[in-house]
């Protein structure tokens, strides 16, 4: 089992290639195994008696010994995943700084499970529970994902593909098999590991599907290194074509919709929208930007920093979601990014986007979604409840001030979905690399591109 031991936290959230391994406590193998066993036991117990015992424990005040790594939790129940997602509340002084938050909460507190939305993927702390033959690059990436150091579907997809390039270069086909048949079985546990760190994004799913198709199509007589180089090139081309170049085209198309004197509103942070705004500004267009943001991630702050950086900053206004109605009358266009686009034209994006879009619609402000075609999903989604992801508690704690935190009791649960779904009726146009299209025509795009799969 490869064990990352270097304590070297990556500096930036967007940094895909920070050297070394992310921060983690150095544990011995035995300790890790112990922890793993505990968690497994906890899961089993939870299944048998889901409510009673935990609710009772949830009422306990949080212990004040936070900050130390919980090597030996008192009871197995304390380490249930549900408790981590909802209940666990730490004394704040330990968590304000970014230490190793995921572990801290894990043993602290237990409350009952979510009464509603318990089907949302429960984030679990990973990192030290590595099963099977996982490549160090993937372990590192898993940690970055689970701690939201790499966030955003484009960044995550690029980071995953970049890690796969490394995995594939380090891979050797066993003597009895061929690369086209065996490589995917080698990649599967890596993917599983990443998914256990954070649920897979639609972009990652699409990229993996394309990659699988490419791998399975490799000629079995091809020399192994050639085959590996071929896949390497394929991944590079994929990133280039579907993400990097697509973004450039989107920048150009969306940029045409910004005119002098416009007031552009955007929500949270989208890498594409950021590029659009910056490139249009550098071309000398005069416009101002309203960045609307919301807890818990407050990603808009990052956007604000990059828009106002440099010698020639864009005039910006920063506001939280409740201020939206009073800002909208002066807005000319709303630009938002997307996590995924479904074939019914619904946009799956950062929680809060739907509200921005709906309110803009009532003010008849056009809502433009910037989205590459590789984010399209052939599924249909009608609401944001059937599938979603929760913001892990450790992340919430990292972004909020200690005094702002609400003490969790057995009667209170925290729910922080990461995404929501904007119905197609609230969207004016979707800017893709194949042009501006109305959301109702999303389903015809894959056909127009002559593709059977996305």
């Amino acid at each position, binding site marked *: 089992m490869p064990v990352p031991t270097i304590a070297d936290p990556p500096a930036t959230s967007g940094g895909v290639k920070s050297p070394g391994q992310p921060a983690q406590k150095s544990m011995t193998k035995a300790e890790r195994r112990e922890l793993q066993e505990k968690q497994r036991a906890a899961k089993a117990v939870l299944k048998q008696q889901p409510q009673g015992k935990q609710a009772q424990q949830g009422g306990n005040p949080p212990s004040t010994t936070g900050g130390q790594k919980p090597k030996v939790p008192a009871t197995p129940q304390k380490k249930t995943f549900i408790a981590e997602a909802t209940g666990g509340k730490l004394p704040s002084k330990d968590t304000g700084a970014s230490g190793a938050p995921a572990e801290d909460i894990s043993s602290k507190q237990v409350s009952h499970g979510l009464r509603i939305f318990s089907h949302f993927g429960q984030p679990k702390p990973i990192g030290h529970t590595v099963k099977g033959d996982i490549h160090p690059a993937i372990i590192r990436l898993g940690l970055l994902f689970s701690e939201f150091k790499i966030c955003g579907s484009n960044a995550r997809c690029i980071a995953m593909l970049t890690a796969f390039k490394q995995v594939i270069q380090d891979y050797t086909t066993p003597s009895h098999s061929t690369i086209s048949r065996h490589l995917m079985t080698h990649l599967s546990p890596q993917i599983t590991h990443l998914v256990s760190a954070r649920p897979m994004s639609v972009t990652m799913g699409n990229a993996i599907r394309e990659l699988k198709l490419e791998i399975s199509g490799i000629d079995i007589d091809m020399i192994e290194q050639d085959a590996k180089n071929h896949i390497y090139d394929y991944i590079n081309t994929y990133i280039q074509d579907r993400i990097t170049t697509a973004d450039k085209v989107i920048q150009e198309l969306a940029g045409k*919709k910004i*005119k002098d004197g416009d007031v552009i509103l955007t929500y949270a942070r989208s890498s594409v929208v950021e590029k659009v705004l910056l490139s249009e500004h550098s071309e000398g267009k005069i416009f101002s930007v309203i960045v609307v943001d919301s807890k818990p991630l407050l990603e808009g702050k990052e956007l604000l920093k990059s828009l106002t950086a440099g010698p020639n900053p864009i005039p910006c206004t920063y506001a939280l979601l409740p201020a939206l109605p009073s800002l909208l009358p002066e807005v000319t*266009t709303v630009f938002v990014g997307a996590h995924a686009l479904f074939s019914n034209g619904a946009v799956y994006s950062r929680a809060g986007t739907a509200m921005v879009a709906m309110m803009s619609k009532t003010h008849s402000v*056009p809502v*433009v979604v910037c989205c590459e075609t590789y984010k399209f999903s052939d599924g249909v989604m009608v609401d944001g409840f059937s599938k979603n992801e929760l913001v892990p508690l450790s992340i919430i704690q990292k972004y909020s001030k200690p005094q702002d935190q609400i003490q969790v009791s057995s009667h209170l649960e925290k729910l922080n979905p990461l995404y929501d779904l904007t119905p197609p009726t609230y969207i*004016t*146009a979707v800017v893709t690399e*194949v*042009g*501006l*299209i*109305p959301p*109702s*025509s999303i*389903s*015809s*795009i894959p*056909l*127009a*591109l*002559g593709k059977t799969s996305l």
Partner: protein
Amino acid sequence: MPAFAIYSAFKRILANEEISTPLAAILALTELIENSDAGTMFELVKALNDGAHDLQKQASNPISLNAGCELFIAFVTLFPHDSANFADLKKELILQGQNYAAEALTYRKKIAELAFGFIKDGSVILTHSYSRVVMQTLLLAHKHKHISVFVTEARPRGLGIKTAEALTAAGVPSTVILDSAVAYVMDKVDFVLVGSEAVVESGGLVNAVGSNQIAIIARAANKPFYALAESYKFHRLFPLSQYDLPSHNSKILSFPRPLLAERASSTNLSARDSTASAHDLSTPTDEKPDLVPPKITQQQISENNPDVDYTRPDLISLVFSDVGSLTPEGVSQYLVGMFAG
């Protein structure tokens, strides 16, 4: 070779009553190929693009013209060239262009037949301005059914009067109504039928100014709003709002400089600077001539107003075109398929 004057050719072709703007643009571009000395495909496409650009610059309203140019240039670039030499290819392209234009003239008949099925006996129809395809549809309906037509005057060009005259001459009962009387008449109407300048990628409609408000009133009264558009009017454009149309410019809706008001206030100030007693006497006498309102001419009004407006797709019930009766979503899917492929 002297430069080919594409705009005059365009004007000449447009003089033909039957030929609409996009078709005239296509024919003008075929003439440009005829006159061009381009030796390669690249040169030819460049010449065409330049020609299209020239047309755009000179024409007052570039939207429907662009639709035609775009279609023809896309056709030329995608045309399979297996001809032995380039001169043959050019001949072939010219032939194809002319054939297309000839065929396109039959589209209106097709559309009229499609829309005919939606017109019931005894229908009262509201139409806007003048459109050849609407005229053809109404005349076809008149042959077989009883219809009566309200036509909006359609200022500033007043083309609605032309429609009403032509309909009356053909024996269709028709009345010209004011543009401002649309809401008044809407309850009497069975459906609205308009032509189009262009049908855009959102599934929306660009048409003579006033169409948007008719669509909004029709929606408020729950009356169907039908648009008629030949497929060469489908245009790869996505306006987000009225002001995002290529025809919009800073002159439209601009406020005139209030020269008189300024003068009035300056005299007011100087009066106040002088003695208070003089103020009472001077202000009424001095300012009176300035307060005479300036004359506003019809020409000034039309200069400050748009020619076309954009109707949102959700206000449109159906678009009849030669490729079928399409919902606005269908139009946008067709357009995405046509150009994204």
